[in-house]
């Protein structure tokens, strides 16, 4: 029989996180044998770019599309069309509306991620040897869905950390220069700031660099979500005490196996097997969550920095 062709459609090409997910997808494809993975994505993180690619994927009659979406809603009509043409659609990492896909694989649950970010801030405050501290959030664009969900979740879990105070939320638009400037402005506006939490790779890097340049290592910590390969340097310099990320390789692996099993009809109701990772159980909205984000610090970052 022909190979099962699964498209791994990412937010944009050239992002370390997704490259790592692709590694996981390749791993799954080797394990499954009869799978061809098409790794694709637009040049910039736009919904229109992804739609264009979805159109060409429909034309190629791929068997499944696993998408990490740039826009929750805008992709839905195109993905519905794909489903009408018999293509199995799932989303992962950053989801799309329910009508647009069969299942969504959350890297972790949003509430866990939100809580984790706050906990990282607490860790950093503890590292400074203080009882209580102030932190600010440096996000990506004001419109990125998962950023906003996580920020909401962070605010919700603040109750658990009475010693932490959120003083500001700013947006660096995932641009290095803007994030850098926003980080500088945060420090200028809040001289007693202890931690900057950036749940985005560009942001966390820019903030760490700004702290380094201002000579505030040890005084202001940067934390959030990032990749070990990108942050190893800042962990060693001390600008970042610890940070978290779920395993993108596992995520890519899971997305591929789930898509494969949907194509093969192996999915039974709310349970979809995902190879070495057991099985994904879906809630009523078709969401399934994987594990907790994993925390990296000086002790383990080097072990992972060569992997993703």
């Amino acid at each position, binding site marked *: 029989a022909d190979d099962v062709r699964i498209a791994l459609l990412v937010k944009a090409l050239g992002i370390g996180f997704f490259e790592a997910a692709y590694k996981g997808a390749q791993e799954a494809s080797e394990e499954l044998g009869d799978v061809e993975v098409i790794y694709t994505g*637009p040049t910039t993180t736009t919904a229109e770019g992804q739609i264009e690619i979805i159109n060409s994927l429909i*034309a*190629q009659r791929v068997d499944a599309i696993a998408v990490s979406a740039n*826009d929750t*809603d805008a992709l*839905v009509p195109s993905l519905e069309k794909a489903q009408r043409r018999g293509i199995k659609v799932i989303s992962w990492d950053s989801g799309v509306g329910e009508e647009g896909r069969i299942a969504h694989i959350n890297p972790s649950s949003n509430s866990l991620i939100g809580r984790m970010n706050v906990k990282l801030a607490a860790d950093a405050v503890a590292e400074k040897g203080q009882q209580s501290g102030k932190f600010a959030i440096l996000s990506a664009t004001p*419109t990125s869905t998962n950023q906003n969900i996580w920020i909401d979740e962070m605010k919700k879990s603040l109750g658990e950390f009475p010693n932490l105070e959120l003083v500001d939320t700013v947006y660096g638009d995932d641009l290095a220069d803007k994030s850098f400037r926003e980080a500088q402005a945060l420090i200028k506006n809040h001289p007693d700031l202890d931690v900057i939490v950036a749940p985005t790779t560009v942001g966390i890097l820019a903030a760490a660099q700004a702290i380094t340049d201002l000579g505030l290592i040890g005084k202001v910590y940067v934390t959030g979500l990032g990749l070990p390969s990108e942050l190893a340097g800042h962990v060693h310099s001390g600008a970042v005490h610890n940070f978290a990320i779920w395993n993108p390789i596992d995520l890519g692996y899971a997305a591929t196996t789930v898509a494969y099993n949907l194509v093969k009809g192996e999915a039974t109701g709310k349970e979809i097997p995902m190879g070495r990772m057991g099985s994904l159980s879906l809630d009523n909205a078709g969401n399934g969550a994987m594990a907790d984000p994993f925390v990296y610090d000086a002790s383990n970052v080097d072990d992972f920095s060569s992997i993703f």
Partner: protein
Amino acid sequence: MTTNTITKKNSVPDFLPVGKLNKFVRWESFLVIILFGVCVLNSFLSPYFLDPWNLSDATFNFTEKALIALPMALLIIAREIDISVAAIIALSSTIMGLVAELGAPFYAVVVTGIAVGGLCGLCNGLLVTKFAIPSIVVTIGSMSLFRGISYIILGDEVLKNYPDGFDFLGQGYVYWVVSFEFVAFIVFALVFYWLLHKSIFGRRTFAIGNNPDAAYYSGINVNRHKLILFVLVGLMSGVAAVLLTSRLGSTRPSIAMGWELSIITMVVLGGVSILGGSGTIGGVVLAVILMGMVTFGMGLVNIPGIVMTIIVGLMLMFVVSLPVLISMYKAKRQRQV
């Protein structure tokens, strides 16, 4: 096309070898040949290319941009440019979303979208004509302004409560594989063809593009003409906003980000002189389809998007240099004879 032998704009001093294709090697013929080659190549590369449904799907990728490219061609011929078009889409889509949110009926939403586009165009046009500021400068500013207003209104919200039937505009089919969007594009292409090549308006556009002073002294109201052109671009951006919003089923302020450059690329590829004064709608339509087919073909064989942008970039450079190269080659041969 008529006996419309518009020559290249003479802003380059007359002693310079200006690329002028032989009358028989028209720009359009040239595009047709490339287009044909691309289609042949595509059908070789992918078995999926020559499938009516797939080709129909492919048209969705460019029709909205193409709708703006039509008036943009006129605007560029008249020596102006509008790089705020994508931002106009964003603002127009945002206001449409708000109106829809209030429960407005189908047609009211559509009219709102187009009207907002027209107003934005009017705004650009007034700034350009009243203050005599170059349009590229004005629209760099209004690009941020219009999209910025969308951000102010929407923030991180999304609007998606569009009325019933609204999705037809961007997703529906009129007959078999022929989508509503594509029909709209063909109709507007004919309208703009007439406007540029057959009507007084078009004749005046060429006159203004070649020599605005002389046009003014010949009794043409140059400022009003330009204002109308900006409004036209705005209105068509509104139309594109309606279709795009309907196709996406939702609005965010980041909608249509970066489209201005692909639209201008389409126009230039279509043989419209960026210096103003010459160009044809036929060329623009061909260029639009050509670009659509190139990107679609590459998509079918999963060439990464960024490689596509390289190819489109190179194509643009090649295509604009070609006539010059040909005329240089000819001049050289003539000298040798």
